[in-house]
């Protein structure tokens, strides 16, 4: 049901762009206004979301400890899984962000004959996630060719590397194909595995369908339907130099693609995709486990008036002696 609602939402978005451009002729709205609006929403949304997280106090160390913490020198510390220094945290974060290390230790639990419980390592989610995120990143970076003039050499090299198979005309770019396959896998995983399907919400399916349709329209434009790439680049260059004009004759598929991408960008700050900032700000990952070395004081502790035992004894020593109570100082 959640999946169907999300699918209908994405189809609705496609229809909005299709009707808006083909029937209502709102080329300027869909080519210029909507993208600007989406980017502004994206930037303000991301900043305010991150600032909100930044204002949340994290008084104590709550890192997930996945290995031996720092202890006696003769006990080997697991420096990446239970870091106690800033360098260790940086290492852990880098491996997490770039290689999804925590997904690599994913295990699967099964009940077998007996009944016996069996745990096995499962890497499919890790592999699918890694393929998806990296190919999406490469696709995003490759699109900078439409936003830079002249195209910088590093972008030319990325595209050359991406298309090094030289299959077909125009050459197949590996990242686009991998992106579509990976996002399809991530979707099928949600639908087929009963446990994952049970916990999947519309907010999980919607971005998957959105990204799937973005990849599909992109692939359609590049290999099958043919769009006027020079006209498109004139539009996109106009967008980034704040001098946007909409050239004639750009296919409606481009506007659908652009509208879906704009929706994705505007949707990011309000959705689970905010994990792109959240992963860096998650206290279970970005804190060193140094509770035994540093005293962490809760910032909102109100000042407590102390009356220590030695002061108490000083005050009542004579009375305590008379009553026959033991005192520490005579």
């Amino acid at each position, binding site marked *: 049901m959640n999946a169907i609602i999300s699918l209908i939402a994405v189809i609705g978005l496609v229809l909005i762009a299709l009707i808006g451009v083909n029937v209502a002729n709102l080329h300027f709205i869909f080519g210029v206004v909507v993208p600007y609006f989406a980017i502004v929403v994206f930037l303000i949304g991301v900043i305010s979301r991150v600032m909100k997280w930044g204002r949340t106090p994290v008084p104590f160390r709550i890192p997930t400890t996945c290995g031996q913490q720092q202890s006696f020198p003769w006990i080997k510390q697991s420096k990446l899984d239970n870091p106690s220094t800033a360098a260790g945290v940086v290492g852990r974060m880098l491996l997490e962000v770039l290689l999804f290390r925590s997904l690599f230790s994913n295990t699967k639990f099964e009940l077998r004959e007996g009944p016996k419980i069996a745990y096995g390592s499962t890497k499919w989610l890790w592999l699918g996630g890694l393929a998806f995120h990296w190919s999406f990143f490469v696709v995003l970076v490759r699109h900078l*060719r439409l*936003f*830079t003039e002249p195209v910088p050499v590093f*972008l030319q090299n990325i595209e050359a590397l991406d298309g090094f198979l030289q299959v077909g005309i125009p050459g197949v770019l590996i990242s686009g194909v991998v992106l579509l396959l990976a996002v399809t896998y991530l979707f099928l995983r949600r639908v087929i595995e009963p446990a994952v399907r049970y916990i999947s919400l519309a907010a999980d399916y919607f971005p998957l369908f959105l990204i799937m349709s973005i990849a599909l329209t992109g692939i359609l434009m590049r290999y099958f339907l043919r769009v006027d790439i020079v006209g498109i*680049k004139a539009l996109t260059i106009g967008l*980034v*130099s704040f001098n946007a004009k909409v050239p004639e004759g750009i296919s409606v598929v481009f506007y659908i693609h652009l509208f879906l991408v704009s929706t994705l960008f505007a949707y990011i700050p309000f959705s689970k995709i905010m994990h792109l900032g959240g992963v860096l700000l998650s206290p279970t990952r970005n804190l060193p486990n140094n509770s035994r070395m540093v005293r962490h004081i809760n910032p909102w502790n109100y000042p407590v008036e102390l009356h220590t035992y030695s002061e108490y004894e000083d005050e009542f020593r004579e009375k305590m002696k008379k009553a026959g109570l033991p005192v520490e100082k005579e």
Partner: protein
Amino acid sequence: MYNGGKIIAGLIIFIGLFTFPIFYNMGKASKMPEPKLDTPAIKELPEAERKCVESKEYMKANHMQLLDEWRDLVLRDGNLVYESTSGKKYIMSLQNTCMHCHSNKKEFCDKCHTYANVKPYCWSCHISPKENET
């Protein structure tokens, strides 16, 4: 803000990277390229015959696939003659047919290809025409 310095530094880096195209293109006026059709071979033709093998729209969208098909037909099947939709026959040859009219590779081919960062590998086998630097 807790750890405000680090978070704000991170945000500034993020925004800087994200808005990179704006700074990169600042102060550069780039024009949409128009392939030039003013070669001597084209000028010699009478006005009515200044046509490519297919329509302009078709060529604009599909020239790469047409060339790809031509290559396969010539090299793999030994078929040298292309009959266009208008019924006219052409010799399928990049260097002798296409480049005969469009002898201005820099102004015709490269302009859009460079603009859109497209790198066709025509010229890794074919000899690209020598043009006078202007």
